[in-house]
């Protein structure tokens, strides 16, 4: 299993954010983690990466307890906000994160160039990150995750604020990585993106509302699109939106 969680709970500021999550993800899948803001997506991703405090229950990534030091070179995590050095160039950022992933010299240079091309920022490689647009910054942050070629990629809203062409390109990239055996956990609050995943996990109020595939979701709810399907599921669960 690439990811395995059992009875995962998390508490933040005295409030329960994750309320007993059970989740298994097999390698080579692109799993979309969807849900409204505040549903616990980021906390779940952070628990899997092993950086969330106050979690209970069981979480494993790549067969090891989440947060194990042996996992740090095998998991790539891109936070929701672009966590890059704005005073350095795109290439300097990538070279730095390549070095932290254990790459040296020409291998580091090659990985940085591949990552910058993968997110379509080749033309901006020499530009300082602080002068980039919001979307370009978030792609630089994504590239910093790709540069170490991790087995498990945990991406928190990587496509937010991007235009449709870029979004399509990135989803194609995610599937290409999955075909190479990588596992991707991708969160989004844009329901349209659901249809691009192999598998959908819908999260609401810290619990899994549905764990399904895009065709199943539509068939099950009879809804015309993912957003309507999600709303139908919430209504069926009898909750507040």
């Amino acid at each position, binding site marked *: 299993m690439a990811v395995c969680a059992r009875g995962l709970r998390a508490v*933040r*500021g005295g409030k329960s954010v994750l309320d007993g999550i059970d989740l298994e993800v097999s390698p080579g899948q692109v799993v979309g983690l969807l849900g409204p803001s505040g549903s616990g997506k980021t906390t779940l991703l952070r628990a899997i*990466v*092993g*950086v*969330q*405090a*106050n979690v209970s229950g069981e979480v494993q990534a790549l067969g090891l307890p989440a*947060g194990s*030091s042996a996992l*740090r*070179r095998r*998991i790539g*995590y891109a*936070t929701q*906000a*672009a*966590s*890059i*050095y*704005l*005073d*350095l160039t795109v290439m*300097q950022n990538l070279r*730095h*994160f390549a*070095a*932290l*992933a*254990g790459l*040296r010299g020409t291998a580091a240079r090659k990985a940085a160039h591949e990552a910058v091309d993968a997110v379509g920022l080749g033309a901006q490689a020499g530009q*300082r990150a602080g002068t980039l647009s919001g979307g370009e910054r978030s792609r630089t942050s994504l590239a*910093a995750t790709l540069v*170490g070629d991790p087995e498990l990629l945990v991406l928190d809203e990587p496509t937010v604020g991007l235009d449709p062409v870029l979004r399509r390109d990135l989803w194609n990239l995610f599937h290409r990585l999955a075909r190479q055996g990588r596992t991707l956990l991708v969160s989004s609050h844009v329901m349209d993106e659901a249809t691009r995943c192999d598998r959908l996990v819908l999260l609401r109020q810290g619990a899994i509302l549905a764990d399904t595939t895009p065709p199943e979701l539509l068939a099950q709810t009879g809804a015309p699109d993912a957003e309507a399907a999600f709303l139908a599921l919430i209504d069926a669960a009898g909750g507040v939106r």
Partner: protein
Amino acid sequence: MSLTLATARRVLAQLSYDRRTVALILLLPCLIVGLVAWMFHGTPVLDQFGPVLVGFFPLFVMFLVTSVAMQRERSSGTLERLMTTSLRKGDLVAGYALAFGGFAVVQALVVVGFALLVGMDVAGSLGLVILVALLDALLGCTLGLAASAVARTEFQAVQMMPLVIIPQLITCGVLMPRDQMPQVLEWLSRVMPLTYAVEALQHLAAGATWRDVQGAIGVIALWIVGGAVLAGLTLRRRTQ
């Protein structure tokens, strides 16, 4: 070790884009030393205060710069990302200390050179004066990294400087001889590292040798280690 070097290289690259900060760090101490030299021209005051400034500036400036830099790492999310990589906490602290320590050597050379130029007399070893200035810079660096953990915002990070540095300046023995201080302040003076830096520098200016200042230098070195450990302890892989 290689991750320490990668961190140091990254910090220096960031600094290299901020030319104005670099210029301020190098030239500001010279300006102050120059003002003192000008004001007390023809008196021995510079001989007394010159060493204090040479010891104080690296501590003061490096504390300020590193506490703000680390606060920026925390608020920008880069620290969170670093903590998901195989970078060890010690690598991060040592990387910062290495980068700013290297920079501090240049600062120490510039400020000591300038102080000599405007008339400060140093009877002892110049190499030891620069060593003390460098140790002060490393101390400022590790204390700054530790202090940034207490600060939630950049405003608070800046305020850590007067909190940590100014009491040391007041009790270091320059404003009042230590044996005339109230008992508690005298104890404080005997614990704080700046006291030992100023003492060593004043002795060196008066012609002291390594043997005379090795105890004081040892105390500063212990404080650097303590600051580095404290800075490492404040870094958390798991956060709320």
